[in-house]
């Protein structure tokens, strides 16, 4: 796919004028060109008469009410108001401009890297599946006759991540869903110093006879500012470091 300039060609530069033209002409039209091109004398005359009538009404009202009340303090613009206004606008722009992009924020040191431990995996079923007998199958509707009968609830998953022999994360995740029949998800992130590290990630997805059902140890050269992901490939049933 081409960039905007190549794809649009001359239109890339022409579109602004297409957008601006109606605004520009509308502005020029309203500031008075409409009167030059199309002098609607009757309309203008009616407007003038209406204005005069309004002035007469105001005058009559004022006469009826007497002279104008003296307003002692009416806030008026100072003679240097343009300068003051300019100063206020400059202050506004400084406040707006400065905080729109500064001060800068250091999210992570340049010599650091980030490890993201992220995986979603369904734990083993709490109750193992059982085979249905022929009698049980015959009681079911034809479209429901699956050979195995399985419970829905799945085990909680425990997960551990160690770096250079030190455990930096150990936790467990309950399966998603009201019946706890979904996947258990982990999403954790850590900052580590860049360089060579040995990572070990272990998981038990519901086998009480083992400490861990899945495990992977790998030495990784972590680059500065790298985002290293530790995840789990569901199809291969194994961890990965990326």
């Amino acid at each position, binding site marked *: 796919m081409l960039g905007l300039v190549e794809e649009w060609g001359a239109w890339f530069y022409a579109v602004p004028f297409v957008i601006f033209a109606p605004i520009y002409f509308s502005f020029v039209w309203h500031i008075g060109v409409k009167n030059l091109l199309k002098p609607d004398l009757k309309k203008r005359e009616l407007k003038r008469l209406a204005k005069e009538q309004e002035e007469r009404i105001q005058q009559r009202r004022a006469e009826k009410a007497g002279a104008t009340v003296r307003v002692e303090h009416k806030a008026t613009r100072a003679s240097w108001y343009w300068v003051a206004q300019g100063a206020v606008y400059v202050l506004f722009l400084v406040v707006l401009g400065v905080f729109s992009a500064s001060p800068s924020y*250091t999210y992570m040191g340049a010599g650091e890297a980030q490890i993201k431990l992220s995986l979603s995996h369904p734990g083993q079923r709490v109750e193992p599946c059982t085979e249905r007998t022929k009698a049980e199958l015959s009681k079911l509707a034809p479209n429901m006759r699956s050979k195995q009968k399985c419970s829905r609830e799945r085990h909680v998953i425990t997960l551990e991540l160690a770096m250079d022999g030190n455990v930096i994360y150990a936790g467990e995740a309950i399966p998603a869903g009201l019946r706890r029949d979904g996947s258990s998800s982990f999403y954790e992130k850590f900052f580590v110093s860049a360089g060579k590290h040995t990572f070990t990630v272990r998981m038990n997805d519901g086998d009480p006879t083992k400490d861990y059902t899945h495990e992977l140890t790998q030495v990784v050269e972590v680059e500065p500012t790298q*985002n290293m992901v530790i995840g789990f490939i569901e199809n291969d049933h194994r961890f990965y470091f990326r």
Partner: protein
Amino acid sequence: MSILKTIRTPLQNMFLRVEKGFDKAFGPEWNPMRQLGTLAFYMFFVAAITGIILYIFFETSVEHAYESVEQLTHDQWWFGGVMRSLHRYSSDAMVLTMGLHLFREWSFDRYRGVRWYAWFTGVPVIWLLYVSGLSGYWLVWDELAQYVAVGSMEWFDFLGIFGEPIANNFLAEGSLTDRFFTLLVFTHIFAPLFLLFMMWIHVLRVTQAKMNPPRGLAIGSLIALTVLSLVYPAISHKEANLDVIPTDLALDWYYMAFYPLYDYFGAGAMWGFAIGGSVLLSILPWIPRMKEEPAPVVTLDKCNGCRRCYDDCPYGAITMMPRSDGAPYEQEAVVDPSLCTRCGICVGSCPTSSPFRSAEELVTGIDLVHISLKDMRLQIDEAIKTSKNGIVLIGCDHGQNVEAVEESSAVRLPCVSQLPPSFVDYMISNGARGVMVAGCPECGCRFRYGVEWMQDRLEGRRDPYLRKRVPRDRLKTLWASPLDVELLQETVQTFDADLNNIEKEDS
């Protein structure tokens, strides 16, 4: 003095000082501090229009979004670049004006009582503004977008409402699909639409709501934003790369101040802050609840359905309904207490609010319960008697400190516009040498139109008029800030001297 008042007073004084200074630079009508709400509306429309223009050029794919913004910024800096900068700065200015608007209304206690609705509906406006602004930053798809998008998704994941973490869409390079990116684009289109809807709800109960700033201020701020866009154009960070974590970020602090806090305190604390803060803001109008006086009462015997109170009420609290008492008039005024601020402007507008009656007959078509017409006349009678220099000052509960002028006597009303013009006639006929109406600064009335209506009534531009027989040189108005203590003193002294001269000439 209550704790609230202790906190509010310095803030109030700060706003009043700034407003006073700005009056000199902009005049009362253009004063930006009194136009913060309309400026926020205006900034929304500037951002919306520039956003539509940018969308024409924007590529809604992960691969080309950054490139399209870059080409617009650099190859077409004279239009697309300016539009982009205007889009950013107007949205920043909206946060700034909205924040100031919120603080100002809070410091002047304009959020409790019947004003709860605007305050309460303002809270979702804040949320929607942030969703609108932040979702816009995602679209540039630079390092800043990456940081904000990942942070936002992680924050939402804390709620645990998604089957799998949505932050996984930003896990590593290649995770983000065009489909998800398009969803972000839609968020940035629909969130501002909801925002506009909520802004409309926000002003729904305000009659004659001002949504556009004065033309001069609108042009001035647009020129200012354009200058900023040319001098300091908005630029992108490096293109996002989910395999690399950005280190130094030029945050837009108007929108992103919460992200470093999120990094430090974590998602739970920030949800606590966001929800707790929103709930606290929402219930603020009721802690403590405003002590509300009873709503004005309409006495049908005196009401002929002239509609003046209906026309003058700044909050649309009065409706004209078909006559219910069989009197030969078409309509009668009906007050909606849930909209009424008890300002008394309706009392001042009623042609039957005349003091030239016996105490038993001193009943008007529409009257406040806590300061009735009868009470007002009693206070005025007392003020005429006790004034050392013969001048009676009429002030309001929220404006100038009229009691501070020792030689004169003062009467405070909820709003100076509660005073029917016939009372000026009454005061001068009953021995007052002069009457001075000392209210809020122009365009700064707590009840929106009190100052304007009063001046119009006294000068014969609005019913009920001040009678012709009243000598105008014995009447003066002073529209000034509560901070103008010296001005008030000086004005009374000058007025006193003027009255002396008049009396000398007359004798």
